[in-house]
């Protein structure tokens, strides 16, 4: 099957999902991010790689934080950034997703950063651009439904590589609401592509997708067993609306069974790192003592996120 994110030369032209990305492409993005990390630490935090290019942040779902990190990344590459709060404008007037895209293409957009509540929306846009033969316009998925959040997956890999160097011996536990998590899916694909020793999916059965083992993970319903001898623990956010009712009885019970406390963390390796895509629910999926503790690398994740997004945008725009 034709891979919609690679061009005829096998180069990255859109970033839609980690799934299907060759290992070399992932490593290239991480290496490029590494060079951009220095840019952000300089007095003048800009490079001219995207000068004259227009990057449209197309957020059909609210997320000030992710949008801001993309905006910072694009601006550090010297691009012009246009933020569209689509939740409140065109779609409210009944315009379809592709009509919106057509209009922005007519305004000479060079890149769309897309966040959408429906899985597959960025694929739809990329497919539409292919039919329009606009290979000069690029799409970056900033999170679609439950499907993928590839830049988060990549910044997680950057963080793991920074602290652990070698992927091949690592045991990584992803804990929590895997069913609804695009971050979990992107992390699983990235980790299996980079060849870690074991990826664990830890959570109650109501929060695990069907056939999740087919993605190459080991399933644990018991957090204690899932954390044992882990090198990396990735905690997932539990959305408020899922805390009480049909999937879980209460946030309190969830914390009791799946919350990461210092005592629980002791089951992992002593040098294990703790990650979280944010925003955190302290006292629901993670205890403050862990979130603020020495093993947490949650704030470095944010810093690396900007470098990784700069890398993705510069690579894509160059292809």
């Amino acid at each position, binding site marked *: 099957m034709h891979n919609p994110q690679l061009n005829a030369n096998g180069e990255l032209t859109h970033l839609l999902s980690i799934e299907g990305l060759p290992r070399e492409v992932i490593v290239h993005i991480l290496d490029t991010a590494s060079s951009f990390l220095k840019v952000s630490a300089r007095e003048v935090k800009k490079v001219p790689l995207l000068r004259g290019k227009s990057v449209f942040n197309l957020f059909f779902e609210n997320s000030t934080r992710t949008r801001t990190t993309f905006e910072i990344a694009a601006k550090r590459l010297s691009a012009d950034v246009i933020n569209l709060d689509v939740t409140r404008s065109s779609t409210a007037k009944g315009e379809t997703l*592709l009509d919106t895209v057509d209009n922005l293409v007519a305004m000479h957009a060079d890149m769309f950063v897309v966040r959408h509540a429906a*899985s*597959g*929306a960025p694929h739809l846009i990329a497919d539409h651009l292919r039919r329009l033969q606009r290979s000069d316009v690029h799409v970056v998925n900033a999170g679609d439904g439950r*499907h993928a959040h590839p830049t988060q997956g990549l910044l997680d890999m950057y963080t793991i590589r920074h602290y652990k160097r070698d992927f091949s011996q690592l045991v990584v536990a992803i804990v929590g609401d895997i069913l609804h998590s695009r971050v979990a899916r992107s992390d699983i694909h990235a980790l299996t592509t980079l060849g870690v020793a074991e990826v664990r999916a830890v959570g109650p059965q109501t929060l695990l*997708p*069907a056939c*999740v083992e087919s993605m190459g993970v080991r399933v644990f319903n018991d957090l204690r067993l899932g954390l044992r001898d882990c090198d990396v623990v990735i905690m997932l956010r539990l959305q408020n609306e899922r805390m009480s009712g049909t999937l879980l009885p209460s946030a309190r019970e969830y914390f009791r069974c799946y919350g990461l406390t210092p005592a629980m963390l002791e089951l992992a390796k002593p040098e294990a790192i703790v990650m979280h895509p944010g925003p955190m629910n302290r006292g629901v999926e993670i205890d403050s003592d862990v979130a603020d503790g020495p093993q947490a690398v949650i704030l470095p994740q944010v810093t690396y996120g900007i470098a990784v997004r700069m890398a993705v945008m510069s690579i894509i725009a160059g292809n």
Partner: protein
Amino acid sequence: MSAKKLHIRNGRLVDPAHGLDRIADLFIADRRIVGVGQAPADYSADQSIDAAGLVVCPGLVDLSARLGGIEPELAAAVAGGVTSLACPPDTKPPLDEPGLVERLVRRSETHALARVFPVGALTQELAGQKLAEMHGLSNAGCIAFSQARRPIVNTMLLLRAMQYAATFGYAVRLRPQDDFLAGEGVAHDGEVASRLGLTGIPVCAETVAVGTALELAAQTGVRLHLSRLSSAAGMALVRQARDNGMSVTCDVSAHHLHLSEADIGYFDTNARLDPPLRSLTDRQALRAAAQEGLAVVCSDHTPIDADGKQLPFAEALPGVTALELLLPLTLLWAAQDELPLTLALARVTCDPASILGIDAGALRVGSRADVCLFDPAERWQVTAASLRSQGKNTPFLGREVQGRVRMTLVDGRVVFTA
């Protein structure tokens, strides 16, 4: 277009109803078949048609085709060799009033193409709350009653609907899918949906509903037909019921015989079907059921325009265009599973005709002259331009298929030639 006397020469006559498959002539007069192999006495044809190299079979009978804008879909039907079709009640507005049914029948008759048999709504507005006027709808022309894709959540009402239908001997068709278990699902709850982050519809959504329908049908004695089975487990329950002596019937869609969840690929909305495409194991079970005659094959034709499909997967409308693919997909199944043509064509001719209880689907002397002539060897590409239906929505778009209809007769009149 008057009722001529037609002599169809040298064709390969395939009549599954009688296990017939041989080179023979067919003689038609007064809208009926008057001779098979041998002309009746004093027969002189107005027109002679050379069918050498073609298969001559009964016009196809389709248990479910949605008609949208009626004329193009009826033209698509006869271009696909379909001469009789049942139309589900989820039209706009739904077929819950005798007047609406009469209007549909009248409108379809003015085009004089495929014959249309409306399926009436089981409940008012298909809302699953109050029984529809089944007796009036039957008088207006409905041949069965169903909810199309809409559920009856209240099992007491479902029991009452079956009891009421059984009172008059009406057939009830149910698309078995538990509304709670299906939820907001848009794809089979399996590997592909999990990978793509699509909400899944588990197999138990089908098995629970099949179990309920069978149990209530056994209680009421209603004539039950289960539409669009999609899973091996669902099919196993139907088989078990039949083995226990129940007369329940069922169907599968032609697309489900060929495709699986894997065909969704990267969110191909043309593969968004209802019920969803399931696993390869499920697909094999549907094929086996069709082979043994447990299930008949229908098109489940649902024309959808580009606006309804160029959307994120979950927002796209479910369904495929299939009237013109029913024959090629049946032939492809027969070829892949090495089935005799009589067996495969039975599932789209005499078998569905017997479920509908209509005079169609056979080539015996005295039966209506609804006939399909097709070239079994001709290959053609499925493209937007090659489909007459207004719907171009099928994963087979761009693919090559084999078997092309050359001529279709309805009531002894030539309604399509190519």
